[in-house]
């Protein structure tokens, strides 16, 4: 009984190749995705914005969206989180959601500050 358990244990630890992992080809693919997204950001900043070819209010949300996309590729593939156990991935990703709370609170607060400044400085 106990030897069986040990066998199962070594089996899981002894064969990490069973897990899906990064190959050289995948690494190069992810690199080109990251490079492509950065190139797109540059295209927006250097070509579209100066020539007013893009609706101004969506420029910053667009940048942030592309940034989050890049972050996903770095964390999922370079940092290998996509191939970890789902429970572990959640243990890392869910606490990050607290940051959204701070963003909301401080955005709200900064609007109060700017009004206050207008009232005080005229």
């Amino acid at each position, binding site marked *: 009984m106990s030897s069986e*358990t040990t066998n199962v244990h070594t089996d899981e630890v002894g064969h990490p190749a069973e897990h899906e992992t990064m190959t050289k080809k995948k690494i190069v693919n992810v690199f080109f995705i990251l490079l492509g997204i950065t190139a797109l950001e540059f295209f927006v900043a250097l070509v579209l914005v100066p020539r007013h070819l893009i609706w101004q209010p969506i420029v910053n949300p667009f940048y942030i969206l592309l940034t989050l996309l890049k972050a996903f590729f770095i964390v999922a593939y370079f940092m290998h989180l996509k191939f970890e156990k789902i429970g572990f991935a959640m243990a890392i990703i869910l606490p*990050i959601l607290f940051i959204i709370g701070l963003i909301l609170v401080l*955005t709200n607060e900064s609007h109060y500050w700017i009004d206050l400044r207008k009232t005080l400085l005229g």
Partner: protein
Amino acid sequence: MSTVATQQIDEIKSTPWSGGHSPFEAEYGKIMMWFFLLSDAFTFSSLLISYGALRFSSAVWPAPSLVFQSFPGLIEKDAPLVFVGLMTLILILSSVTMVLAVEAGHRNAKKEVVNWMLLTIVGGLMFLGCQALEWTHLHGEGFWWGHIPNKETLQEFFKQGVPLLQQQHSSQQFANLFFTITGFHGFHVFSGVIINIIITINVLAGTYQRRGSYLMVEKIGLYWHFVDLVWVFVFTFFYLV
């Protein structure tokens, strides 16, 4: 009857959380590195969100395309994003060489690990060099913690007609935040380079070959990718937005 009961117990014992082995199937040090990076992510987000809040609360802000429009030593003006683009490219490339070192480690290919690690270190040093040039350039214009350029220089970063008081106020905040946040990030890059050098020495000494796994390379790899990840955000919020 009793055999059925034993089988049921065996079945329960084979689930990930029933004990006997790590439910995450990850090594202790690697998990701890992830939790350190999580805490570091909170630190960096606090800094970047404070930057966002101060920027939102200002009526004006120095335009990034005007503040960062030079390529130190080569182009003095009208080249926004070019230098920082180079820095971004260097850091992404060094992230790629790092992940290639990890991949070589999985195959226990010592020589390849060393080569990729050395390229990663070179990438890190190049990034630090670029940042030093960037800081020197801004310092030369008059920006520093608690210092802003004189009236004439300051006007270059704003539209015509912005009151001087508002210019000075927002520029001061910009300077403090820029040097604090890129400085904190640069310090992470610097630490990363030092740790990379130590790990490379260990690889050369055959420490991980004797241990039978290059897991340490993977752990420092996580840290290095995180530094790249933070730069992606710093790049967006300081240079693009």
